[in-house]
């Protein structure tokens, strides 16, 4: 009896291990965002009532249904951009000319720069992009439910629900961009400021409309403390400029565009790259403190030292 028991036990433990591996997460990526439906519908009304009422009345329940039907009850590795066509049709609105802002490797910067569509309208500031930004979703074959446990990554399968969505969103966004279009690239990114493959290279540029776009403005900005890997006229940016010119577009390129530099400086206000040239009036504006517990003297010393340091930097 005992001699049979141990191998049985051993085999059953092995089976349990492999069983739990199967019971564990199906995919390597994070699962569907919780409360996805409420978030998407809420964002839809938020957009049409508050963010951009100019787009007019939209049926947000219908939009949610179209979004959901693109990927539920299907193999999560077989979702195609075309599956979202109805969703795109329902959420489509014109993009104001001269406001398009394309980007690679600097999403948070773009969000700050675009100022919720008031300065620029990035894809995340359009209705179709706004609904899905920063969310994750996927379904499963033979079940109408969303998979909250895990979702496939790009590495596991290209035709996953999220990546296919952004493909058609990018195509649509590029097709309807007009006037002067801007593209913000990261000059410190590994693999180059203009990544290939990439959304901009593969889905956006090929859909630029020659008769609608008057100029492409490229901004290449390095991280404040990052290396200067790419800049205008070099490496991947040169490739980009050549490609656009060959396609017949009027192209300009600027390194370290000032507006974006200021945004980067927010995290490094005392960095030398972020020092203001106009120091004379600034010196008068040293901190004023109330006289409490002897900190006044310390503060006077600190601000005087700071003034001297800034003075030394300028000269």
């Amino acid at each position, binding site marked *: 009896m005992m001699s049979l028991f141990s191998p049985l036990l051993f085999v059953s433990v092995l089976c349990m291990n492999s069983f739990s591996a199967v019971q564990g997460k199906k995919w390597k990526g994070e699962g569907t*965002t*919780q*409360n996805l439906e*409420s*978030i*998407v*519908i*809420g*964002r*839809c*009304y*938020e957009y049409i*009532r*508050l963010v951009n009422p100019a787009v007019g009345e939209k049926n*947000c329940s219908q939009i949610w249904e179209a979004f959901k039907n693109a990927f539920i009850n299907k193999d999560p590795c077989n979702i195609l951009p075309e599956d979202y066509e109805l969703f795109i049709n329902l959420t489509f609105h014109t993009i104001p000319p001269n406001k398009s802002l394309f980007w690679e490797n600097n999403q948070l910067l773009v*969000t*700050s*720069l675009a*100022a919720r569509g008031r*300065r620029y309208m990035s894809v995340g500031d359009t209705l179709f992009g706004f609904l899905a930004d*920063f*969310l994750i979703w996927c379904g499963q074959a033979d079940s109408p439910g969303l998979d909250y446990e895990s979702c496939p990554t790009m590495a596991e399968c290209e035709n996953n629900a999220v990546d296919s969505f952004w493909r058609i969103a990018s195509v649509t966004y590029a097709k309807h961009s007009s006037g002067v279009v801007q593209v913000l690239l990261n000059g410190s990114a590994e693999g180059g400021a203009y990544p290939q493959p990439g959304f901009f290279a593969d889905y956006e540029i090929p859909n630029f409309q020659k008769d609608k776009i008057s100029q492409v403005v490229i901004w290449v900005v390095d991280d404040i403390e990052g290396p200067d890997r790419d800049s205008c006229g070099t490496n991947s940016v040169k490739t980009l400029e050549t490609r656009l010119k060959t396609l017949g577009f009027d192209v300009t390129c600027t390194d370290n565009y*000032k*507006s*974006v*530099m*200021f*945004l980067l*400086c*927010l*995290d490094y*206000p*005392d960095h*030398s*790259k*972020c*020092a*203001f*040239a*106009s120091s004379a009036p*600034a010196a008068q*504006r040293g*901190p*004023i*403190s*109330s006289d*409490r*517990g002897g*900190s006044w003297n310390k*503060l006077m010393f600190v601000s005087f030292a700071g003034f001297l340091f800034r003075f030394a*930097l*300028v000269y």
Partner: protein
Amino acid sequence: MPLQQGSARARQRTVLLVGIAVLLAALVLAVVLASLLTHGRHEVSPQMLKWKDRGTTKNLQEVIVGRCYNYITAQHPELGDKDCLKIWESLKDAFIYKNPCNITPEDYQPLMELASHPIPCNKSLFWSKTNDLVHRYTKSNQNFLTLEDTLLGYMADRVSWCGDPSAPGINYESCPKRNECESNPGSVFWKMASKMFAEAACGVVQVMLNGSVEAGAFRSSSIFGSIEIFNLDPDKVTEVHIWLMQNIGGPQSESCSGQSIQRLINILEERNFKIICEDNYRPVQLLQCVHNPDHTDCRLCTNSSAIP
């Protein structure tokens, strides 16, 4: 006798005709009156009160619930135990079917309790007359939180709501302005939420004021000046840092040495807070320069050729 019978019948006929005519006239009058009355009210729900400010935001429920889930799920998963539907119900119950001039803090008590959450020390950022700039700053720099970056403020920012005693209980057409009545749903909400936000602050607190407004950077009539500074807890809050921001290109109406700032400093000192005031706090000024990059106040040293 045949003549008498003939005249009686004629009289009967006349009476009948007159009766019908009167009935018809009454019917016509009734129809005319009805159409006049309904025409006057067809744009507004019957008997709803009329006010001067914009009405309740359409689809308020979807917006509030969506924002609640968005805040928790996407940004603050540590608040995962909050029930967004319950939170919406408690907001709705605070004002639905009530006269919008009779709202009290007690109406909002359940909502405040459900939606409040702790604020980390040294992160509270108050503001007055710097709405746009302060929120651009907190979006770019997660180190500070304004009231509108807490769950309560995030849900309520830029939306409006008010009720009415008649069905459906919510007034989408108009809501009272402050000068029509003080105890309106919006004002009571923000006063209460501001009070709680101040009470929850600890450590070093910051306030961004506007040094380019004519009426003065610090005003006693503002929510900051009338509620927030008086609800900071001296046992929890150690210092108040004032960031006095002037518009790029001015006007430079007030600086840290200005009168209203001195008044603010006096009030705070009396409550035993240490105060530091800084003109044009650098990180925020950098943000101002994003959209004024070529202004002389925004010249960076790296642009000058003198710098190695």
